[in-house]
């Protein structure tokens, strides 16, 4: 049965991607272009040379961070919609640290800057965690609102206090704080912005996977996510868990700063994220909230972002935005539809637990007195 779950988890996103390519082809036809031609530009542009692959990884890097952040919170039953704000706070603090502590040697400054990025994001995740634990304020609302505050706050800082005149960006961080570009080590990647941050993202995915699935902390976190009442019965301090989870989630978001600030432009610039904080939700969804799935989903969405630049000369880049949207839609729909089809055909009764689980969920709204049991 485990194998079947895995099969669905792989098959659904795959079908979603194929389906969206088909829909995209339709739109390309409408614009009067040949879809095969456009797709061949797309694929050869990405996979045809190391530059393309480098850019693919580069665009995927911030998505891995934000996807992990969303998934980590989700496993605890929390919706972190505030990655955008968290990554802005983290990145700004990262840039500030990289400028102010320029005297430190690289071996020290790089970890300090990474810690600053994580801390800035964590602080911005801590606040909704705290609000939820102490007052019950729903984290969806608070994280969204905090996005606006973070955006306005960083905007204010880079226009009034800490900026290069005539721009909306900070000064460049010290050379010792910069993450090496991959092109500097492997010349084949020349021109690509891919930098060491990609490996930090992979390491983060590995760490999240370990924490969620192999540690006791993760055991308690997921127990709370699945069944808060049982978590509490089992002695999990749900308030503490909420705060810690959202802070960690925010910290992971903040690490986006390692890619842009430490590895690419070497400064913080207003509006740099291009919405990766929100894309993280889609990435987590497509990656089924699993760290490895998130890496794959990030590569897909990263590829589409990069690809939109590649095909821009032939078709409007909005075509690829449509692809992204269709992928997300088909995953959402596909989850239920495909699972149902796959399960029904196999006739092994796996859908029995599914109805039970649905009961468990619906049961929240249904009479409590009706003890939910078999």
């Amino acid at each position, binding site marked *: 049965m485990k194998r079947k779950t895995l099969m669905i988890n792989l098959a659904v996103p795959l079908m979603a991607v194929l389906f969206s390519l088909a829909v995209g082809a339709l739109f390309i036809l409408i614009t009067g272009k040949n879809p095969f031609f456009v797709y061949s530009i797309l694929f050869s542009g990405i996979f045809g040379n190391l530059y393309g692959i480098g850019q693919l990884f580069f665009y995927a890097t911030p998505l891995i961070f934000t996807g992990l952040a969303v998934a980590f919170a989700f496993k605890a039953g929390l919706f972190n919609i505030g990655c955008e704000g968290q990554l802005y706070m983290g990145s700004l603090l990262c840039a500030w640290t990289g400028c102010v502590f320029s005297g430190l040697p690289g071996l020290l400054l790089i970890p300090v800057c990474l810690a600053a990025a994580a801390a800035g994001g964590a602080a911005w995740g801590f606040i909704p965690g705290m609000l939820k634990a102490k007052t019950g304020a729903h984290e969806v609302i608070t994280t969204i609102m905090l996005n606006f505050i973070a955006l306005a706050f960083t905007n204010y800082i880079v226009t009034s206090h800490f900026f290069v005149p005539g721009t909306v960006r900070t000064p460049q961080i010290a050379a010792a704080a910069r993450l090496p570009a991959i092109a500097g080590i492997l010349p084949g990647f020349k021109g690509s912005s891919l930098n060491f941050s990609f490996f930090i993202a992979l390491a983060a995915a590995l760490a999240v996977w370990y924490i969620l699935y192999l540690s*006791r902390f993760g055991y308690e976190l*997921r*127990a709370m996510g699945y069944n808060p009442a049982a978590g509490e*019965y089992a002695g*999990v301090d749900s308030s503490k868990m909420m705060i810690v989870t959202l802070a960690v989630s925010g910290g992971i978001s903040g690490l986006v700063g390692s890619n842009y600030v430490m590895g690419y432009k070497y400064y913080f610039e207003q509006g740099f994220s291009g919405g990766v904080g929100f894309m993280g939700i889609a990435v987590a969804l497509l990656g089924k909230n699993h760290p490895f799935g998130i890496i794959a989903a990030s590569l897909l969405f990263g590829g589409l972002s990069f690809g939109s630049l590649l095909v821009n000369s032939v078709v409007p880049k909005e075509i690829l935005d449509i692809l992204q949207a269709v992928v997300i839609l088909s995953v959402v729909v596909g989850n239920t539809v495909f699972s149902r089809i796959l399960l029904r055909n196999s006739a092994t009764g796996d859908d029995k637990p599914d109805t039970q689980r649905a009961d468990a969920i*619906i049961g929240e709204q249904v009479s*409590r007195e009706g*003890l939910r*049991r*078999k």
Partner: protein
Amino acid sequence: MAFLAVELRNITKTFPGVIANNNINLGVKDGEIHAIVGENGAGKSTLMNILYGLEHQDKGNIVIRGKKVRMENPHVAISHGIGMVHQHFMLVRRFTVAENIVLGREPRRGPFTDIRKGLEKIREISDRYGFGIPAGEITGNLPVGMLQRAEIVKVLYRGAKILILDEPTAVLTPQEVKELFLILRNLKEQGHTVIFITHKLKEVMEIADRVTVMRKGAVAGVRQTGETDESELSRMMIGRTVYLETGRKKAEKKETLLELRGVSLEDEKGVKALDNVSLELSSGEILGIAGVEGNGQNDLLEAVWGLKKTSSGKIYLMGRDITRLEPARARREGMSYIPADRQRHGLVLEYSVAFNMALGRQADRSFSHGIWKMNFTGMREKSRQMISEYNIVPGNPGAPAYSLSGGNQQKIVVAREIDRNPSVLLAAHPTRGVDIGVVEIIYKKLLEERAKGKGIILVSSELSEILALSDRILVMFSGRITGETSPDKTCEEELGMMMTGSISMQERQ
């Protein structure tokens, strides 16, 4: 020409690794009350789910009144006059009873719901069979027994002639059971057919005309209730004779383990759920708490456990004040708790059996090495040991908990909590929804713990259970302890009256 109301022919249904139903033949006559008994996991619920179109057989046919029917889904079942009342009720709390009953089949006048027409029909059904349901009440305010009746009326409202009741008495008080049986007899008299799933043989003998016994996915036999008795049925059910004789030795009073002094607790609405409750639990003692469900017994345990905050009073565990202890500390202090609602509190259904065995004691050495590392090997070993000790089916520690039957889920909780070796065990309905073979195991375990000098608070709606196990019995009524007695000084009838407040201690003496 008389057809059988329901005929199941050669039904076979397999789940991965399990044959839930093996070539089952079942015939239910028109207008009879037909009980289906069997242990947990014997395949009763699966069979009924197939009949109701919730699941699909691999092989075999369903014949309704002589016509072969493909039960695609419950809509097909309903259109053939079959209705099912599940153990967990499907009611919207905030709706009135009438709104719940008509939901999905609302009588209409133009584009609007004609609730008055619905009310008339409900009242007619209610009067005809003696349901006496308050159609205008908000559903959430009603006791469990009433909710169940609303479910039955809902099924009748949809025109069901054949009713399937899945363990209908599990959540009811003795009084409510009596009332339910009256209704069932009325239904039968008026030509309805009732299929009644249970594992309580006493009820079978009382209400059913015929009984089909299932064992390990197959039919072990069919009997007229007039021509059999409980001991024969229980032998058919589990293949051997069961002894629920507990054979207790007199408890010798030793030290006080747990003490409550004047504990009060208010629920969300500010109503007193516990009102000045004082009690003492000694080592080597089983203290039974009898009461109609919802009179504060569960609140009492949750307050001791730390899930609910008391508003006044003190709780002492072995002389130490634990009044405001949170559950994590409670566990460390040597208490264990079998919660009343296993799916809500006791289990994470998405987790495997092994993971659930660790729930609440995940910090123990057998289950994790510090906060950063789970001990999967230890967890599996421990689980295997408990699985075999309590005969949990399926015996695979990796199986998700939601795939287990209710009784086996309960076994996980009981095994885990007793295995923790607590000095005080809080047990709420430890045998609820569990078949007689397992009841025997659980009784044995509880008595073993008692013999080791542990103190056990036993909350149960089964009076026979309270009487069989307890050394002392406290009766709770609307949040207060209204009486104390012991098994050798009282009987079920008297306890039942004390529980409903119809006699007080003073009158009794």
